[in-house]
């Protein structure tokens, strides 16, 4: 038998009961709306029509008729490629902009102009440049998701206390040692915050790019089911996107807090 103290109960309520009732309320609101809007499937109807996708998540019945697990997998692989490409460019770029104020002043306007461009605007350019949908999607993801990493890495370098620079000078560290032993470790928490934000953006971009190119994935599935007028599947895709995005963010937060614990 587990007996709860008052504090234990309060923690249980705070951690579990409140979030669960929040979700329940949202579902209730959804059901109510679906009563008055006939086009919107109710939660129950969504579940009924989506069962086959959820219960057999890895079944492949056709190019655009696969388990939700497979669709999510395709999307995640695409995101991983684009995201990795993005941070491979963004991390050194951000560090450089942080170290050199000349470079920062030079490229800051360019960055500020490129940053707010929507993935929907980059994708056609990617298609023109690469002529294939996969590299075009990677390009759009990379170019959209890199900015938080650039900005955070640069801010991280600028936030290194004078104290650490002085240690490096006093110990007569070489430029290389200074970089690997001081700049990188001091900036790492900032860089990881950048990675987390970048991954969030990459996940936003993937849906848009799949919808535009019609490639198999969560976004592609969503668009196809819209065209086939199966609205319950739209909701399934939307919820899947949300849950995966949330999970990715949580994972990155865990990695981040490990780094900060140092």
């Amino acid at each position: 038998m587990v007996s709860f103290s008052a504090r234990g109960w309060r923690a249980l309520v705070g951690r579990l009961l409140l979030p669960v009732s929040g979700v329940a309320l949202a579902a209730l609101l959804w059901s109510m709306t679906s009563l008055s809007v006939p086009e919107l499937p109710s939660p129950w109807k969504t579940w009924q029509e989506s069962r086959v996708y959820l219960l057999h998540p890895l079944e492949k019945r056709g190019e655009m008729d696969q388990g939700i697990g497979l669709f999510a997998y395709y999307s995640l692989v695409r995101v991983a490629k684009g995201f990795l490409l993005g941070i491979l460019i963004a991390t050194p770029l951000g560090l450089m902009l942080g170290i050199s104020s000349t470079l920062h002043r030079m490229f800051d306007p360019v960055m500020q102009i490129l940053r707010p461009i929507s993935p929907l605007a980059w994708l056609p350019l990617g298609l023109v440049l690469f002529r294939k949908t996969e590299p075009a999607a990677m390009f759009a993801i990379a170019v959209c998701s890199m900015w938080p990493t650039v900005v955070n890495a640069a801010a991280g370098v600028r936030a290194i206390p004078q104290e650490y620079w002085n240690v490096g000078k006093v110990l007569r560290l070489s430029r290389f040692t200074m970089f690997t032993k001081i700049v990188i470790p001091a900036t790492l928490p900032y860089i990881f915050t950048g990675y987390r934000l970048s991954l969030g953006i990459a996940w936003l971009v993937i849906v848009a790019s799949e919808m535009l190119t019609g490639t198999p994935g969560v976004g592609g599935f969503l668009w196809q089911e819209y065209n086939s007028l199966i609205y319950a599947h739209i909701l399934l895709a939307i919820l899947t996107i949300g849950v995966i995005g949330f999970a990715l963010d949580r994972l990155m937060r865990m990695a981040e807090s490990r780094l900060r614990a140092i």
Partner: protein
Amino acid sequence: MAFIEVSGISKAFAAKESVRHVLDDVTLSIEQGEFVAIIGFMGCGKSTLLNIVAGLLEADAGEVRIGGERLRGIPKGASIVFQNYSLLPWFSAIENVRLAVASAFPAWSRARQEAQSRRHLEIVGLGNAIHRRPSQLSGGMRQRVAIARAFATEPDIMLLDEPFGALDALTRANLQEELAQLCSAADRPVTAIIITNSVEEALLLSDRIVPMTRGPRATLGSPIAVAMPKPRTAVQLAHDQDAQRVRADIVEWLAAYVQHSRKTPRRQALATQREQGISPVLSRSET
């Protein structure tokens, strides 16, 4: 010519819409192997002076010569201990020390660098905490790591910027005596400058005490020699006649500035006071 020659150093910082003159025409010579304490009030410019000698700051006027050569950048063979320890938090104690050793002796094997680092951590009594990160060490232990790091590079010059300022009184007393022993035990002459606001610390460690006037436009007073044999202990200093005389001299000198610093120019104030035979009241000799 002395080993370290500081001549005519002036330094000002630009503040909002004004210029803050911190140092004005500071001159000081230090012989090889000498331990000099610069004592003064908080914020009078002591650290600025040390940072200039350490090559971390550039003076507006004047020059620093070490071994006859004009100082450019960080002096070779110098170690600096800062008040805030300045350890790298992502490295363990031994990694912090080894970073300095590796940089000072790049030709050594990794094992030898490691052994040197370990030995110096053992000397400061941290033999069983070498793998701890700074965040897992107390303030006193952190400063011990910093001192081990400074000595592990086998420096000819030690620059200490209020090294014990952030420590509690008991820890401070221990570390002061340990530092005194380390300096005396070295197999080569170590020339040292310590910045402090504690008369006792200066007495315990130094051959010569140089008082500094209060800023702005701080400058150095005439040095007071401390002739007692080293290493000294706090107990010994409490009753020693020489120590009492030196203590009185410094306290008097510093107190003279406190009383007249706002109204009259400093040099005059001191002169007037001496003429009138006022015995200065100790109000802020130790902060």
